[in-house]
């Protein structure tokens, strides 16, 4: 998703700081990039990889004491040089970078065009520099011109503005992430902390409506009425180096291999094997809800399906909703309903919109997230952290695993009457070792050699393994670009079976040996009868391994934990498939790490 950086107060390395910041935001996904430096304004922008911009920067060596930069993930207009940020007014006096969507840009654009302003891009962003320029033209002071313009914007945005000849950066946050880095003699702005973590770990987390005026002497945070507000400076604990690749070819593989550690971290200190209890310290006592509605997108939605299934098994009505649908067509709820948003980044715009809808309807909300102090964590009544550590690969891996652990812990926190939790606790404690066993022994890479040229890949499962099937297919398609679909196994014969041929391997996730497992065995035979090779992902308790053509084995464990293990095998298959096909695994085309537009 779009990324913003900015800095003021650096002597001669402003451009390097901006480019370094953009590099560290690459993981968010982008298709063009640009920078503006001042006080004597230079704007450079390029479509494509950051290296294109770097080459232009290396050739021209622009200098300055302040600047802003941007990586763009296209929403309004295709990725071209003209649509890349920063955008400027006609005279190049005002440069603006923007993340989010300005919903009333059509109206503003028409008004400006009526005044004779010529637009050079198809973006919504371009209205901002023109509006500011018009105010400046009319003799308004720069800061007032900025405030007046921001007052007119509707929608979600984080913007940063530079004015030719000035030594101040103006920025505003409304619905899109923006943080301030507080350096010794310098101030930084960014969509996310890693962009300036090399320079400072002291951070101001802005809230919606906040505006920032930053110059070489420091920064001021104002609210919507232009009144200065006191904001706390927090010191973030992680260092820049935690986001390195540690010698792995891809962040995704590094993050897959980190799972024994990140999973242990997810339950460390929260489970007591001696007492048989589970406690989430960061939440106060939450009364048992009458019902739970999960809202989430993408991989997190698959975790939500799993969480909802666990709650239903414990007798609490629970459903998972796609957040993008929920906000626009909110399902009915009673005041005793808890709405749980699952979002890795805590900034996913669709999920935030759904949670805000729920907040607006007066029910309790809870964020299950990986990001301390994220918008979701701050806006919800409760926040539970999955503690997976920073995830850079666009394809979520370790955070999905930790979300499933988080769901297990959350369910026990929410449900009053607990059965004996010791078997679950034992299985959670075995989880890091079980994942390590898969990493040490997996045949996924060997299977890729056999199946890499298939026409499509299907994934089936029942119960909580539906989540695994859907997630396995999503992972496969997003990084390999191959056609992949996941289905509840019983749905095959209601349509998808028409797609099944000898050229479409089917991954069947079969754990345990209950009714669901036995019925899935029937589905395996169904697809085998159509000639499709079947790869069973199984713990060996049922006959799946004997029936299937190939197996990916997982250690035996508690039925609630088995889906986490099955998913690790599928992560490895998708990774090696994409690697064999030569895909840019950490930065798949068109995708962004955290989707901060609706």
């Amino acid at each position, binding site marked *: 998703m779009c990324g913003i950086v900015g800095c003021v107060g650096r002597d001669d390395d402003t451009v390097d700081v901006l480019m370094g910041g953009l590099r560290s935001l690459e993981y968010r996904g982008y298709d063009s990039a640009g920078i503006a430096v001042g006080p004597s304004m230079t704007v450079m922008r390029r479509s494509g990889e950051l290296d294109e911009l770097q080459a232009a920067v290396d050739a021209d060596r622009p200098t300055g004491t302040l600047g802003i930069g941007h990586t763009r993930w296209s929403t309004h207009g295709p990725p071209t040089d003209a649509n890349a940020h920063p955008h400027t007014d006609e005279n190049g006096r005002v440069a603006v970078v923007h993340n989010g969507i300005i919903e009333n840009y059509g109206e503003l654009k028409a008004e400006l065009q009526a005044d004779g302003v010529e637009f050079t891009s198809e973006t919504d962003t371009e209205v901002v520099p023109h509006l500011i320029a018009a105010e400046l033209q009319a003799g308004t002071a720069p800061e007032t011109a900025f405030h007046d313009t921001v007052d007119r914007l509707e929608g979600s945005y984080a913007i940063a503005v530079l004015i030719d000849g000035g030594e101040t950066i103006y920025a505003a946050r409304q619905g899109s992430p923006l943080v301030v880095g507080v350096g010794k003699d310098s101030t930084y702005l960014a969509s996310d902390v890693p962009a300036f973590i090399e320079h400072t770990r002291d951070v101001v987390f802005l809230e919606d409506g906040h505006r920032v005026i930053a110059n070489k002497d420091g920064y001021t945070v104002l609210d919507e009425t232009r009144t200065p507000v006191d904001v706390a400076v927090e010191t973030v604990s992680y260092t820049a*180096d935690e986001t390195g690749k540690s010698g792995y070819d891809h962040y995704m593989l590094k993050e897959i*291999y980190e799972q*024994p550690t990140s999973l242990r971290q997810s339950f460390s*200190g929260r489970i007591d094997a001696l007492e048989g209890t589970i406690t989430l310290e960061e939440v106060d006592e939450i009364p048992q809800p009458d019902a739970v509605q999960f809202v989430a997108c993408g991989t997190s939605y698959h975790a939500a399906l799993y969480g909802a299934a666990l709650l239903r098994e414990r007798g609490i009505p629970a459903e998972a909703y796609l957040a993008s649908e929920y906000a626009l067509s909110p399902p009915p709820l009673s005041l005793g309903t808890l709405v749980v948003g699952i979002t890795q980044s805590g900034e996913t715009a669709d999920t935030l919109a759904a949670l805000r809808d729920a907040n607006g309807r007066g029910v309790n909300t809870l964020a299950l997230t990986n990001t301390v102090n994220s918008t979701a964590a701050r806006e919800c009544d409760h926040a539970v952290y999955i503690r997976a550590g920073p995830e850079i690969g666009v394809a979520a891996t370790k955070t999905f695993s930790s979300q499933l652990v988080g769901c297990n812990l959350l369910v026990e926190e929410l449900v009053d009457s607990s059965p004996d939790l010791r078997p679950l606790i034992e299985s959670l404690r075995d989880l*890091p070792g079980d994942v390590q066993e898969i990493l040490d022994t997996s045949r996924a890479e060997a299977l890729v050699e056999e199946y890499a040229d298939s026409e499509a890949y299907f994934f089936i499962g029942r119960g909580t393994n539906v989540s695994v099937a859907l997630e396995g297919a999503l992972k496969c398609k997003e990084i390999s670009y191959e056609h992949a679909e996941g289905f509840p196994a019983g749905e095959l014969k209601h349509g998808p079976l028409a797609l099944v041929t000898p050229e479409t391997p089917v991954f069947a996730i079969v754990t345990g040996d209950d009714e669901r497992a036995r019925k899935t065995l029937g589905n395996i035979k169904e697809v085998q009868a159509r000639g499709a090779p079947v790869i069973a992902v199984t713990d060996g308790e049922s006959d799946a391994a004997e029936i299937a053509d190939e197996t990916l084995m997982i250690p035996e464990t508690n039925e609630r934990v088995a889906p986490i293990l099955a998913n690790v095998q599928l992560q490895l298959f998708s990774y090696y498939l994409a690697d064999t096909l030569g895909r840019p695994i950490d930065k798949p085309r068109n995708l962004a790490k955290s989707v901060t537009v609706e």
Partner: protein
Amino acid sequence: MSDQTPEDSTRPSTAVVLAAGEGTRLRPLTANRPKPMLPAGTRPILEHVLNALIEAGIDKFHLVVGYHANRVRSHFGSTYRGVPIEYHTQTNQLGSGHALLQARDGPSDPFLLVNGDQVIDHRIVEAVLEAHTDTPATLAVVEGPQAAEYGAVDLDDDEITALIEQPRDGAYRLFNAGVYVFSQQVFETLATLSETQGELPLTDAIGHLLSNDRTVRGVRTDHFWMDATHPWDLIDLSTELLARGWVDATPVDSNCYVDESAHIHPDASLVGPVVVDRDAVIEAGAVVGPYAAIGANVTVGAGTILKDAVVDSGTTIGPNTTAIEFVTGQDCTIGAGFTVAGGPADIVVDDQVHHDIDLGGVLADRVTVGGAATLEAGTLIGPGAVVGDGVVVRDRIDADSEVVR
């Protein structure tokens, strides 16, 4: 790019650490990870090595990894205690000189080189760093009976005059501790040498320097240095570390170190020296120690007695077990009433008999042992093996095999 600190341009601040080798004599414990990742106390040997280097002022690591490299990478990541790590991959393990060559584009000049699989006192490192001048190489020399097994040296004042590999006679007492400072020239020297018998040891480069009349400095130190050669040496290594308090956990009582996230039942007894790592659980009535290292996420069952034991992370030991002079790998599962009563034993490794070894038994990673099973002294069980209920096992059990009564 320079890793030098500006204030002292001769003292190296960059270290190359060799962590690519399996350590075949430690099989079956090395099935899934290289020797530097085996436990010394509750942490990998390599953590202790890096700790010593940090204490000696090193601010950049170049880790040469190879055998099961991902284990090293995912354990340490891109930094360790804030010190950045750059990884270099040695695809085929062709000796320590070949390993160093893989890092030739990394370190600044001069640089420190240490083995990642031997625990060293930071003062050895400091002694070498201080003694190094503008010679092509400086190395640490320690004294001990182990000289016969390592590279013995002849030392004339502070100059090395000869290197003698594994002299096998008692005439030598001084040997090379595997802690060096080299100038960049060592890379050129190594590049001119060829592998003999599929190996290019680092000592060939030193031999080459000596035969060309170049000065190789030697620094005598008598600080702690320890290598685990065989699986049972891990017990002694752990004992030495516990005795020195070189453990990474909070001291709670005299010689008892317990991580804050561990759960110890009030009716369990810790008998120091003992260390209990993160998230471990000690159930009621267990007696742990002296000289027990309980790894992260380990469970010690009710009423179990453990001493002179190294239990690696994730292992579960059932109730009423007695285990003395015992080593486990990671993620083993042991049933109730298991007995391993300790050595001495005569153990055969690669057709060589080791007499009177104080070893009860060794379980490699992910071994499952049923209830009431017994290990006779000196038993080595391969990874993934399953030992059934009530079985008495001895000698060696192969990987992934199943033994039933």
